[in-house]
């Protein structure tokens, strides 16, 4: 276990992590999914949970979201223990979780609608984030009229619209085709830069993790533990294509693959 939160930035609250995970264990009946996970998620950074499939990455993310109860241990967001979902966290779902009977506009504004915000106000906020994710002109479309990539953009806009500090993304691109996925990753990086939020990202793609992350947490196979923490040394000011050819990028991908290879049989 390394703890590298000290080096993040010098903002007043930066010394504390946005999300702290303390000795989280999770058992499903006989199966031990997570064993004593301790992690800090630094504020304003994108941290990725990466590991072999079925290692409990999503379970850990849902525990942080307050959607799943841990068997033992504690999650703290801004120092406060998590007892359930809260407005300071927003979730992006693997299968998008859009309401098929609602338009893009209503879906994006739905988090605000649940908070009881008036229609005009929430629609103007939603319109802003629909534009941010590049869906202007699709406000009145229904989810079934959109491609997989566009549907997940709606999911992302919905999460941004509630203005949560922490965004939890559960394999958001896994149901998106390869070309759209690349474009989407580039857009995500731009939004991470712009929105200055804490992102926790779950993926099983090594390339994706290295491309978008400030910090990668490698989880071992079940019972899952933190096996390694890697901070990719990638120059993100470069163009997306340059990053994908960058030696640091390629070396990190290789390093992670060497670390994960023995889990694959």
């Amino acid at each position: 276990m390394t703890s590298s939160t000290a080096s993040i930035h010098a903002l007043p609250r930066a010394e504390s992590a946005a999300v702290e995970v303390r000795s989280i264990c999770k058992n499903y009946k006989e199966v031990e999914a997570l064993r004593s996970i301790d992690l800090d998620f630094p504020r304003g950074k994108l941290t990725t949970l990466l590991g072999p499939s079925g290692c409990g990455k999503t379970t850990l993310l849902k525990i942080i979201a307050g959607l799943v109860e841990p068997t033992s241990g504690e999650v703290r967001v801004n120092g406060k223990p998590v007892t359930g979902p809260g407005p300071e966290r927003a979730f992006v779902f693997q299968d998008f979780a859009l309401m098929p009977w609602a338009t893009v506009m209503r879906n994006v504004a739905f988090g605000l609608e649940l908070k009881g915000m008036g229609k005009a106000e929430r629609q103007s906020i939603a319109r802003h984030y629909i534009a941010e994710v590049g869906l202007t002109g699709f406000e009145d479309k229904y989810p079934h009229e959109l491609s997989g990539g566009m549907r997940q953009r709606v999911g992302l806009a919905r999460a941004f619209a509630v203005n949560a500090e922490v965004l939890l993304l559960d394999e958001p691109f896994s149901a998106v085709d390869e070309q759209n996925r690349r474009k989407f990753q580039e857009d995500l990086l731009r939004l991470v830069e712009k929105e200055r939020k804490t992102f926790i990202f779950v993926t099983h793609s090594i390339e994706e993790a290295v491309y978008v992350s400030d910090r990668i947490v490698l989880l071992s196979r079940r019972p899952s533990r933190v096996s390694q923490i890697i901070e990719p040394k990638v120059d993100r000011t470069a163009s997306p294509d340059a990053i994908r050819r960058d030696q640091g990028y390629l070396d990190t991908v290789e390093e992670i693959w060497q670390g994960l290879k023995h889990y694959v049989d």
Partner: protein
Amino acid sequence: MTLYGYRVPMMASLLVWCGIWELVGQSGLMFLVPPLSAVLVAGYAMVQTGTWQAAAMITLHSFAVGMALAVVVGISLGVLMGRFKAVDELFSIWVNIFVSAPLSALVPVLMILFGMGETTVIVTVFLFAVWIIVLDTRAGIQHVPKSLIEMGRSYGASTFALYGKIVLLAALPEILAGIRLGLVRGVKGVVIGQLLVAIIGYGELFELYSRSFDMENFWALTIILFAAAMLMSAAIEYIEKKVDYYAGVR
């Protein structure tokens, strides 16, 4: 069934059968089957009589009240059974028995409980219609994607909002299918209830015409009843298709 007219093949087959009916009727082979044209003429005269109008009103009233109860109770119980395992285990045996039981046999018992009047008919409609609505609602609720519920919870939905804005809407296609099947069963219920109680509404007219072998009026009555049932079922089916369209990506 002419109300299905917008489906060309069905319309065509219907015309063939109407033709056969007319021919058999005209040939006078069976006195039970008068020519279709005679039935239609009788029907046209019948709907203008006060007897028929009064019977239709009382039948419609019993049906509407019974169906409204069945929809409210059916959806509520179905939601509870779909969401809570304990409720499901407590009620599923009864729902499954009643959905397939020959309920007509119960009507005499209901008569003892609720008297010889409209209440018995309403209860009969309710009992015929409610179980399929319960079962379909339950299935719909159980098929609501888990991630939609998690989405609601993670964005702070209250229990009320979770059901009103997400769960019920996501289960709407199945709920509507249940109501459509329930309507058809409810029509059966209202006629059987009135026939067995045998003193009011449509049942009384059926009794009257079949006893006096007034076949023109008997068939006219039957055709009107079928048409009404099909029309209602088609109306719900139309809504269902619209909803399915929006729910198509689940």
